[in-house]
């Protein structure tokens, strides 16, 4: 089983991040959420590995706990 890679992989991470931002510019929150949903499905399929997907979900959940301001 391949493990989730959490070290940086893009030669230019700023550009990659920017591509995501650009994709959402001008979208309503609704449309942004829809776009993200499609993106997640596409990228998950590209990864094509249940183990990696589950690790990614776990990592994302961990960061959610830290970043949510309205959590008591």
């Amino acid at each position, binding site marked *: 089983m391949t493990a989730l890679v959490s070290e940086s992989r893009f030669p230019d991470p700023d550009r990659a991040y920017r591509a995501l931002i650009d994709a959402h510019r001008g979208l309503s929150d609704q449309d942004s*959420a829809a776009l993200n949903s499609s993106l997640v499905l596409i990228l998950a399929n590209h990864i094509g590995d249940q183990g990696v997907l589950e690790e990614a979900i776990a990592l994302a959940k961990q960061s959610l706990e830290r970043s949510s301001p309205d959590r008591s």
Partner: protein
Amino acid sequence: MSTRRTLYQFGYRRCPDQDRPSPARHPVVVVGAGPVGLCAAIDLAQRGVPVVLLDDADRIGEGSRGICYAKRTLEILDRLGVAQPCLEKGVTWKIGKVFQGNDLLYAFDLLPEGGHKMPAFINLQQYYLEHALVARAAEMPNLDLRWRNKVVGLSHRNEGVTLTVDTPDGPYDLEAEWVVAADGARSPLRGMLNLSFQGEVFEDRFLIADVKMKGDFPPERWFWFDPPFHEGHSALLHKQPDDVWRIDLQLGPHADAEAEQKPERVLPRLRQMLGHDSFSLEWVSVYRFQCRRLERFVHGRVMFAGDAAHQVSPFGARGANSGIQDAENLAWKLALVIKGAAPESLIDTYDLERSAAADENIGHSTRSTDFIAPRTAQELRFRNAALALARHASFAKRMVNSGRLSMPSTYETPLSTPDRDTWSGSLRLGAPLPDAPMRAQDGRPVWLLEALGGEETILHVPNGDSRPEGSRVLVIGEDLMDEHGHFAERFDATPGSTYLVRPDQHLAARWRQAAPDLVKRASLRLRGVDA
């Protein structure tokens, strides 16, 4: 609201057990004459075990429930002698189509391969299936079907169970060495043993209607996400015999079940869907679906099967199909134990194998129901994203889930002897054998599964050595001719290949070259005898 009247009415008859001074003792009592109890009772009786079958009702056909019966179920029904009337009456189908709005997203073919006796699926009102089973049961001298015999009490004794049975003439007691509890989703027997039935309830309500009309839709399963006639929800249309169509409409979580069943609500909905009003309503009901199961299916001498043991939502047609597979799994084991040919512990493998099957079915059914009825705004977004992507990207089609239709389970079980050789082909260890068209010695065409029947069998491809030894051996090329090569292909057969088949037609062991002691050990192992 139901306009349908009772289709078949059976009479209560007083039986001699009611007049005995002390309770009669029977090897097996099956409780519940639904599809599962009937199949279990017929299978046991066919295996030479006398059976008493009790049902609290005396009629069939007031409501409609199951309609889709899968290939493996039909193969089992064939062995029980009832597939023919079902096939004659039923609508054979294998194509499913999934639409979003007005557009076809994709179509699937459930059995693209020829050379099988049974089709992928037939649709048939459950009451026709039950009627065929009751007719078969009536032919069997060792099957005693007692209508209006309601089990109201159960107590375990050493080596058996005492049942208290209520009848129009009052109650009587029965003793059974073994009890099969096939008394449906509300299972009173489960209650009598204080067993919990746990799982998930889905919030959404669904309207299920059977509509009679002359339609020119093909015999395919059509499923819509967000159709123009029922915006924001899902719909299903599926053909049954007698010009009856099953319609299934998602209503959402807040629908009022009572109000939705009223003709003034139902008829306009259906009119909108069908585009006309030349139809009549056969039956309508509103459901909230559940997926739940008993933790264990075997409790002392009481074995639960079918809806009494596990319940699923109808997407995927896994209820009756899996219940009938429970019945088949249990019948041969119980017959061997009762005859003293296997240890009592063989019954534990019923729990093991069919629990795993129930988990598989519940998993599929839960995932389908969640896809069809998303619970949160984000679940809905993912669902809609998958649907939208399915138009452009093939991976997303496989994520679209309108119900994964019932398939038999492959058992990972101590009864199997692990493979030592490598195999290709469609045959799997622990799975039911694929069928194949063969010829018997006398030239008559025969299907492989017909030839197997319900006995433990060794299939052997000759290689010049002597035949393997076993209670029953069929040699390919001598007893059965593989004219079209389907057997060779599906079983990856080469000279010397030997297959040990369980009485339920699942594969227990296989060898490229079979040493007699290995075959013997595998045969003991499949009967649960330590070897």
